[in-house]
């Protein structure tokens, strides 16, 4: 099983370590030629969505990755990754990949002083620790989107077919639940 990790900007090394600990092979995607190989799943890490979105477009990756996701490639987006996958961002005119039928709010908890950690249920997989860094949340979901976690009445994790998103950063904790769930999605696809 080979997982590509978008490594344009942000916390991609943390995902590599997490998946390495679960026995999955990973490689970094920094430009077009990196996605010409075959792979089984894609992670879009946290970072700044404006930076990653711009680099996706300028490095000629947006359309190719969109096609792969629409073709069923399992993808997992954390924080900025959630924003890149969202069909609509309430307080941002950009749509980047726009493959997932969710509406998100960017920097929804304010500046860094609004960053926080919590613990809440993740689907039926029990409680997981959650780190929110200048995080977004999901303010609306379309049909066929399964809500996996809510914190303080806000949706912070969801799944639609081959797409999994979290507003928090499971790659920053030791708990492997969310990454295991993603690898299960990859295996089942």
């Amino acid at each position, binding site marked *: 099983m080979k997982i590509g990790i978008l*490594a*344009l*900007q*942000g*916390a*991609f*090394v*943390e995902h590599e370590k997490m998946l390495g600990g679960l026995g999955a092979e990973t490689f970094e995607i*920094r*430009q077009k030629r990196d996605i010409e190989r075959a792979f089984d799943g894609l992670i879009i890490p*946290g*970072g*700044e969505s*404006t*930076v990653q979105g*711009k*680099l996706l477009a*300028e*490095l000629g990756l947006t359309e190719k990755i969109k096609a792969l996701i629409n073709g069923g490639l399992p993808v997992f987006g954390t*924080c*900025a990754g959630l924003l890149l996958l969202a069909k609509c961002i309430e307080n*941002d005119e950009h749509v980047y990949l726009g493959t997932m039928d969710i509406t998100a709010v*960017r*920097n929804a908890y*304010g*500046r*860094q*002083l609004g*960053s*926080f*950690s919590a613990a809440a249920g993740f689907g039926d997989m029990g409680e997981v620790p959650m*780190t929110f*860094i*200048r995080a977004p949340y999901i303010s609306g979901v379309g049909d066929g989107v399964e809500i996996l976690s809510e914190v303080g009445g806000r949706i912070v994790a969801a799944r639609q077919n081959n797409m999994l998103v979290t507003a928090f*950063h499971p790659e*920053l904790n030791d708990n492997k639940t969310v990454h295991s769930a993603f690898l299960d999605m990859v295996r089942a696809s």
Partner: protein
Amino acid sequence: MKNERFELNKNLAQMLKGGVIMDVTTPEQAKIAEAAGACAVMALERIPADIRAAGGVSRMSDPKMIKGIQNAVTIPVMAKCRIGHFAEAQILQAIEIDYIDESEVLSPADDKYHIDKTAFRVPFVCGARDLGEALRRINEGAAMIRTKGEPGTGDVVQAVRHMRIMQSEIRRFGSMSADELYEAAKELAVPYDLAVYVHENKKLPVVNFAAGGVATPADAALMMQLGAEGVFVGSGIFKSGNPEKRAAAIVKAVTNYEDADMLAELSEDLGEAMVGINEHEIELIMEERGK
């Protein structure tokens, strides 16, 4: 609770990795930087090259000016306070800055003590020339480190020197035996537990960026290949002929820092780089501030 805050603050720096943090002096420049792909901006009244030219005492920027920049962009906004000036830091915290740079670029307010950064909820980034300075700042509560370099010169030599020293000392710590580690911690005047962290993980406990004198995509790629996790660009962008183009090129150079073909393409037609002054021409050595 304090520890949790430190973790969250360290985590924000992790999200900035692989990115470029740009100095900006106006909301317009901040928008240009954001559009060019900056992962954060540093709001300040004068960029280091102009601070150098103006001389005199250089202080924290006007909060109104910083707020103007906060309102202009959606990416994190950082601002500088003077070394040891905890009241300036309190003010920056009050306006909810995302990161405070306790910076040698400004005139130091205290020639002995740095700010006790553990007393704050907002994160701090501090400059360092070697492993000892880095670990002392982290012990005081810094959640991110950058090389000092020599700001406002457009000369990358000091940033290279500081990054090389830091990486070499990290490698040295990594291969020490337990008994050697006690002595090394003592020599560097750093807490033993931080020395152990470096020994075990072969890296700093927080994110480490390059700063000071970065002016071209090649400079940025050089610093990344030397082990920086991201790059600060101060005077290099808005003191150059074509800030938009140069900023965007540096952003791409940091992502693909090992691809020489792409770097060659990015380095074309950038217009005039900042003129710069070399280390033998400068009278004010900012890197000496705060040890």
